[in-house]
């Protein structure tokens, strides 16, 4: 059940009604309903892997308690948990990739290996819920939280349906405390949630879906298109992936708000970042935060004697992992490495840590801000070509065609509405950039009549453009 489908609407209306009116007598009942609802939700999406999800939850729950009970064996148990989590994820997602990379490697020296690729199905959301369980164990190990003895709470944390399939990834220490307190209905939070869902749907259905067509056509036929069109293709893909994923995240966060939960923010207007460090503080924040805490920080502490070189190494490893987390393809690894390399100038001249905040409240950015924003956007946009390509060589072929003299010829006629929708989205997000999400400050800025008029226009646009349905891009991860 995906958030932009009619079937989810029906599911959620029933769930919402039960949650706030029938199952709201005790905390336990609230959590049990969420757990049950989450499993129903997951079963609808893919029932075969429900057993894996439940199994993983049970195993890690037991591990947590065991780690707490026996400090002596705590490290060993942690490693067991890491093995299950990372091992399970690696096997399911990367087995065939390793095998074929292995085979390719040996082929370079003319040795043919006869290794079998096996047909493995990837459990939906595994990249996301695995990171939830891993954060739980790592936090217990570091003493940041105590293991829970309440299995309902833990299982619910792992399977929380609004964020189960594509995040945001909540660390246990920010989410579990919310499960331990009763959720009381808050009118303002609920309305805010609805507003955020509306905005997310708009980005997904109106912006992302309309860009997808151009992007698909451009990438499918790039060899015969002029460089200027390929530039558009890269631009629209950057917009598409942002609108798709941030739209999904907005919906997940909004749905969580309707249930009285505050989950992690995932996007903070990344395309307005002024350098790459800023960009990664704003893009897929829950993943970056997870990797920073559990990968980058330990690495940078271990490498601290090597000064700037140590930091560079830590960053490159960190972003190689960001890359490969997305999937089993060298294109993703290259994507990650490129971003790691983008950090090197910042590390070398010491500006990686200096936050470059935009001046608040300006309708028009300053010239310097604008220059930085565009420069950062172009750097990022170019890496999305690699991200989108099927193979590394295809990506380089695309670059070759892009940076040829045909860059200056007229582009093939493009969908004007997609351009309009993209710019409209960017404009609204720019004006709303000081808020949690683009429409967050709506109540303050506009009168009720204006707000409702805009809401209806958005709803109209959503229904108008619905149906050219592309699956959420981040589902495959």
């Amino acid at each position, binding site marked *: 059940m995906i958030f932009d489908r009619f079937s989810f609407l029906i599911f959620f209306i029933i769930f919402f009604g039960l949650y706030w009116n029938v199952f709201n007598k005790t905390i336990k009942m609230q959590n049990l309903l969420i757990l049950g609802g989450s499993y129903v939700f997951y079963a609808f999406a893919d029932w075969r892997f429900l057993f894996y999800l439940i199994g993983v939850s049970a195993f890690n729950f037991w591990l947590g308690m065991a780690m707490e009970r026996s400090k002596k064996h705590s490290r060993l148990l942690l490693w067991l948990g890491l093995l299950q989590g990372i091992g399970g994820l690696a096997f399911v997602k990367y087995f065939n990739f390793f095998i074929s990379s292995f085979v390719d490697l040996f082929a370079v020296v003319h040795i043919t290996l006869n290794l079998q690729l096996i047909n493995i199905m990837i459990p939906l959301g595994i990249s996301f819920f695995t990171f939830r369980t891993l954060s739980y164990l790592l936090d217990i190990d*570091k*003493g940041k939280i105590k293991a829970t003895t309440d299995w309902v709470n833990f299982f619910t944390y792992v399977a929380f349906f609004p964020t189960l399939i594509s995040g945001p990834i909540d660390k246990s220490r920010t989410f579990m405390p919310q499960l331990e307190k009763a959720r009381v209905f808050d009118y303002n939070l609920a309305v805010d949630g609805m507003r955020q869902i509306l905005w997310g749907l708009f980005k997904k259905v109106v912006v992302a879906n309309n860009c997808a067509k151009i992007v698909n056509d451009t990438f499918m036929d790039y060899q015969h298109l002029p460089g200027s069109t390929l530039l558009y293709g890269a631009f629209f893909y950057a917009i598409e992936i942002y609108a798709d994923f941030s739209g999904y995240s907005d919906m997940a966060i909004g749905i969580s708000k309707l249930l009285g939960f505050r989950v992690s923010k995932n996007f903070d207007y990344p395309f307005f970042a002024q350098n790459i*460090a800023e960009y990664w*503080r704003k893009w897929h924040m829950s993943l970056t935060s997870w990797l*920073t*805490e559990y990968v*980058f*920080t*330990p690495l*940078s*502490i*271990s490498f*601290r004697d090597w*000064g700037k070189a140590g*930091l560079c190494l830590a960053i490159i490893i960190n972003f190689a992992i960001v890359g490969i987390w997305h999937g089993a393809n060298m294109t993703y690894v290259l994507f990650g490495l490129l971003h790691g390399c983008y950090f090197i100038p910042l590390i070398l001249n010491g500006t*990686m*840590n*200096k*936050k470059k905040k935009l001046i608040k409240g300006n309708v028009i950015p300053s010239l310097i801000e604008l220059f930085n924003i565009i420069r950062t956007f172009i750097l990022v946009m170019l890496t999305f070509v690699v991200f989108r390509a099927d193979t590394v060589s295809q990506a380089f072929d695309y670059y070759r065609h892009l940076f040829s003299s045909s860059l200056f010829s007229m582009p093939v006629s493009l969908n004007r509405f997609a351009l309009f929708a993209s710019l409209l989205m960017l404009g609204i997000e720019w004006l709303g950039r000081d808020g949690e999400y683009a429409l967050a400050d709506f109540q303050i800025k506009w009168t009720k009549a204006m707000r409702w008029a805009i809401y209806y226009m958005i709803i109209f646009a959503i229904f108008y453009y619905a149906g050219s349905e592309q699956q959420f891009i981040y589902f495959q991860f």
Partner: protein
Amino acid sequence: MDRNEIFKHVNEVFIDVLDDGNIVLSEETTANDVDDWDSLNHIQLVVAIEKLFKIRFSSKEIQSWKNVGEMISCIQGKAA
């Protein structure tokens, strides 16, 4: 070295590394209270402090501090 002296030095390190002359630390200050202090530049603060006091923290210690006060106590325990 007494606690106040350590405090002063640490405050200077923060001002220097985070390039912000307005930083004033207290015992309870956490990363949430200082605008530019996040895990990305945490390590640079640690390195600068280690260099200044000629001490060495273990990675467990580094990740255990919940606020500036705890950091100072850790330094106090190590500095002569």
